[in-house]
């Protein structure tokens, strides 16, 4: 046997058309009990275990394959509730995928119901380690109680002014690293809590490698938020408002609900 079945995602509905998948192969669907699996027929010379051990070490191959996998997941998730499956999930044949849908159909339906009508947004917060980080715009007034001790920045907006930035750096060096660290953590907690309040679910991922993000500053928050479609604009506004005062906020998305379909099944 020289072919296998590569699984991208399990979703509620079948799309009339789908972008090309891994290795530029066509994507098709396997339907079963109200669920649709998105798959490609892949050659085992490329997607067998031995081949993958080598290929996954090749960063170019990994990048191309990850993008192709994501492209399919993204297209499906834009149209129908979708549970993305992890990269390089390869079955012997279609029969095994049908069997999965039969056996774990209820689990998939439960997860799909949870993400239905919602989209994942990524929010990353960065701070320049050399500069100070204040409690954040409005933090002193919103009564959340996690504001930092001491005469911190006066309510945001000052990060862009050279004089203020200089004073923040100066203050940070005087305070010492421990205090900066504490402030950064408090600030990250504050941002995450505020965004979680607008989300149906939230997850705080590990901070990303600075080389991956192409940035040199600290990532103090790497959050994922499952947001009702009607609240997208409100969420984006809130995310932007939480920046400033030494912290830069970057929003990515909407994503397929990668962070909210994490489950292991046999």
């Amino acid at each position, binding site marked *: 046997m020289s072919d296998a079945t590569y699984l991208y995602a399990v979703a509620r509905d079948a799309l009339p058309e789908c972008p090309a998948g891994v290795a530029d192969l066509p994507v098709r669907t396997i339907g079963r009990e109200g669920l649709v699996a998105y798959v490609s027929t892949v050659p085992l010379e490329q997607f067998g275990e031995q081949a993958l051990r080598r290929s*996954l070490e090749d960063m170019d191959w990994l990048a191309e394959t990850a993008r192709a996998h994501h492209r399919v997941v993204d297209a499906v998730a834009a149209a129908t509730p979708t549970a993305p499956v*992890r990269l390089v*999930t*390869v079955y012997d044949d279609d029969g095994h995928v049908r069997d999965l849908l039969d056996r774990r159909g209820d689990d998939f339906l439960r997860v799909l119901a949870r993400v239905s009508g919602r989209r994942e947004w990524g929010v990353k917060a960065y701070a320049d380690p050399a500069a100070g980080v204040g409690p954040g715009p409005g933090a002193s007034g919103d009564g959340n109680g996690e504001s930092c001790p001491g005469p911190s920045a006066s309510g945001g907006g000052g990060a862009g002014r050279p004089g203020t930035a200089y004073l923040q750096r100066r203050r940070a060096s005087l305070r010492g690293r421990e205090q900066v660290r504490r402030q950064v953590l408090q600030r990250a907690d504050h941002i995450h809590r505020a965004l979680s309040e607008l989300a149906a679910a939230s997850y705080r991922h590990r901070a990303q*490698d600075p*080389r991956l993000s192409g940035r040199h500053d600290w990532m103090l928050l790497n959050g994922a938020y499952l947001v009702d479609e009607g609240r997208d604009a409100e969420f984006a506004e809130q995310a932007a408002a939480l920046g400033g005062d030494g912290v830069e906020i970057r929003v990515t998305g909407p994503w397929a609900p990668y962070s909210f*379909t994490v489950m*292991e099944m046999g």
Partner: protein
Amino acid sequence: MDRMMGSGSAVRPAYAGSAANREPTNLGDILERVLDRGVVIAGDIRVNLLDIELLTIKLRLLIASVDTARELGIDWWEHDPWLSGRDRELVEENRRLRRRLSAIERRGEAIDGGDSTERYDRYRDHAERHGDVDV
């Protein structure tokens, strides 16, 4: 490594939002999702990411953030089976056991002349379920 980072060139999401400060989808964001999130399927399967020794990839992608994380007081690597020494020992022990099992099975096959491949697969599955760390 550098060539895959920072360029910011990328697949755009199929559906565009309107937030002013959104950035284009970069490869790092995609990788952390497709490698670490979503549904993991184990068991009755030909290949899955967990079978493949991703230590190098994971390390390359993530370990450099350890210093940053330490600065921030985050200790996720203590719980990451790929990165914590304790679990790596378990993984290594599991691998040794599988090799021994495989050798014993082959010897058994030679003795009784039967096809023990299927039996080995069952043992292997069992070993995976019970011996492998939960990732």
